[in-house]
């Protein structure tokens, strides 16, 4: 009898477990806002897309390195050829979604140079290195990125919003006229949770298409 009592608490748990779905697809559907649009989310947050490209390239480079076919010196030469091919790098910058207007590239270069001068961090190198495929010519590197962009898994992009983007206060759509009232204030609108990660929930944000400024959705 004692044992039975002890096990009684299991009944509601097992009922809940029996009724809840374990499928991931359902989790996405329920967690996303009703006006969520994955294309807009990808345009507003190009890093979510480019991360997938980076990962693919990193994996194939790693495979090449594991085979031992490529020495460290070779890879440095390969990278410098890539980084110095300005036309390729410029196109890549556009492809990755950072080009907002004609001045963007000049701005990036000037920022990169100034940082490099002040704190000795080579943003330019850091920015583009992940897109260099080893043992490929710069033009091929670009083609690989183009190819990988076509193969982007948009279910993972959606999942990013529900798993992290919402918490991170990422804008998920473009703003309408009514939205643009409160500008997103970094951290002031967020709680900080136990792991020191800012949590913007339940606030949700949109982005102005032209100014790239994020607003709080009321």
């Amino acid at each position: 009898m004692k044992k039975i009592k002890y096990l009684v608490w299991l009944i509601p748990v097992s009922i809940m477990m029996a009724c809840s779905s374990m499928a991931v697809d359902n989790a996405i559907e329920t967690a996303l806002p009703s006006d969520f649009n994955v294309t807009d989310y990808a345009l507003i947050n190009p890093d979510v897309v480019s991360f997938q490209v980076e990962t693919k390239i990193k994996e194939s480079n790693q495979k090449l390195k594991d085979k031992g076919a490529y020495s460290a010196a070779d890879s440095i030469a390969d990278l410098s050829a890539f980084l110095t091919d300005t036309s390729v790098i410029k196109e890549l910058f556009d492809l990755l979604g950072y080009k907002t207007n004609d001045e963007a590239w000049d701005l990036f270069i000037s920022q990169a140079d100034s940082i490099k001068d002040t704190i000795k961090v080579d943003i330019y190198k850091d920015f583009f290195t992940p897109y260099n495929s080893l043992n490929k010519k710069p033009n091929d590197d670009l083609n690989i990125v183009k190819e990988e962009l076509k193969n982007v898994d948009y279910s993972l992009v959606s999942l990013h919003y529900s798993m992290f983007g919402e918490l991170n206060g990422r804008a998920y759509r473009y703003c309408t006229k009514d939205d643009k009232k409160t500008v997103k204030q970094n951290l002031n609108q967020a709680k900080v949770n136990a792991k020191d990660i800012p949590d913007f929930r339940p606030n949700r944000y949109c982005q102005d298409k032209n100014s790239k400024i994020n607003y709080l959705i009321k």
Partner: protein
Amino acid sequence: MKLKKNMHTMVFKIVLLFFAVTAFATTDSLVQKQEVMIQKLDSIDNSVMGLRLGGTATAGFVSSKLTSDPLSPNSPTRDNQAYTHLKLRLDARPSKETNARVELTLHKDWHQAQEEGINPVIGRWFSYDGKILNKIVDFNFGFLRVSDTPLTLFTPQSEILQEPTIFKEHRVDALADRNLDTTNNRLLQGLNVHYNSGKLGVLDNIYAQATGARLRATAKKYDQVFFDFDWSDRYFAGGRTGLEAYGAHLGLNYVNTFDRIRSTRAVAGPNPLAAYFYDFNKVFTVDAGFDSKNLVSLPISFGVDGEFAMSNWRYRADSLTQKTKTHYSLIEGISRINSYEGESSFYVQKTESTSKDWKLKTLLKEDGNAFYVTPFVKADLFGFNLDLKATYLQNDSNFWAEMASTPLYQRNISILNADAFYDNQLLDGVIASFRSGNLENLYFSIYNSNVLNRQNLMTINASTTLESDGTSDSRFVLSRLYNNYKLGHFYKNAYNANTWKRLEFLVDDLDPSVNMALPLGLATPDRQGVLVSLDADYKKWFELNARFSKIERQSIDIDYTTIAVGLKANVDEIFALHNDLNIAFSAEEAKESKSELKTTRLNAGVDIGFLSKWSVLAGLQILNKDFGKDPVSFGGLYPSPDDPNAEVFVTTATVQKTQELFALGGLKYKIAPNSSLSLQGGVLNNSITYLDMIGKKNDLDIDKFIIMAGLKVNF
């Protein structure tokens, strides 16, 4: 103490013997009196605790001489069996309510006496049975014979009206070799518990029964002695409950036969088969009935029995398949959307892992209904005894009740002169199919104990599965291993207690000479029709049996008509003779409408007793099969006359008719009840009418002259 108790029993037996003799002296023949006595004495013995030994010992000789035109000149023509066969029954009674029974068989084959050497005993029956808790609960554990209802758990039997006594004895013996009997009970190995409440208020009885058993599933074990337990074995679980009141009864019955999935998976090992196939069958039925005899006792009684069944059948395949699991996780990365310098952010990473997982797929599923209703009238007036029954049945084509349908007579095998070989290539197929016949299969059984060596142990034609390379050594090198005391007990016997799975059941394989219309009894799928049966007698002087059935097979629009009549005159009853004297006759015809397949069976039998212990028994049975418009064709591939490199199929023989005849007569001396000395002789003919390659009509005769002698002692 024990002696005193035995003395008491003895005295009681003697007193009872006197009473019994005086009670039955005037009415029954001596044989019947003796049998009643034996039963009475047995029932006394049955309540005595301790160990009891009984059984039968048979010394026998069977010789069959074969003559047939196409027989090879080198072929053996005489099949001799000389044996001593002992069936030992041990009953141990630990209490008055329960009984443990072990039956052992000892078989000495005198033809192989030298090779056999020391002969081991084999166990053929193990059971623990009892009537416990004030006799309201019966139980059986181990070997058991049970039946529930005709659509759940049942054994359909083949009925031969007024079968001559001499034949029936042989049939019962052949069945007994397989632990089978002539009842509708099914032979199982498991546990059976049966509760009967007895009278409870207005209710006459409430009953509940549960049965569980392990079934043998695979064809490879049909007659193989080894590796008896296999994970592919099937299991059976059944239960029923019901109540009886006011002469009526109502019952609910359920049976479930299934394969063991998890245990098969567990032992499948790292390299399982591509797929394991499973067969699941469940049947739920409601049965009801009424008998006016249970309400009021009148010379005329009437009633009705009926059952409605729903079956569920699934055929599934289980296979180990590669399964991919997807995992989503967040990993850290650099985001440069807010500043080109970058800041830490998190991204979704998808990783996949593969694992092998069992997947059960349903390949076929069928649900069907079946029902029958049997009104009946029984009368006992002016010396006339009458029992008239009519059954209407309607079974869907997708109805399947595995445990109720498989008959005991399953296939045609060669029993007598199985070692004979024929020398006519054109008739190979005909001889393979017709070298024995229905009559040989119904009435004969051969029991051999063979020394096991590599040739008869798991042998497939010439090659043996035990050897890895047949070319490197003589294939017969291990033949000399014979004398290792391992004897295989083999039967040549057409009866079998196996149950068929639905897909194992093929109508074409069934012998149409037995139950053509309802080969699987009342549970035969795809049948609709009426059966009428009449059994009557006048003062036990004359007996009359009549059967008629018209059964339709809905799905392919054919119907079966069966007519049978049996007559018996018990001359000993008419003239109140002390010795048996009766003569019996029967005729049966079964027809199928589309192919005009027709079987006719005629029986004549006579039992003559004289000098109180002697009797002459004789029987004649003729079975004709006419295949009508659908004759059985045999042929093979032969070189084409146009192209010597090509082969064409040529029909070498088309069997139109077969005529089987079995005549057997014998003399029997009765030593004691169930103990006798007998000498029998007869002929078994099988005449096959076929068209040869050029369409000319021919007859192939296979004749066997049989002599049998035997001494049977019951103890």
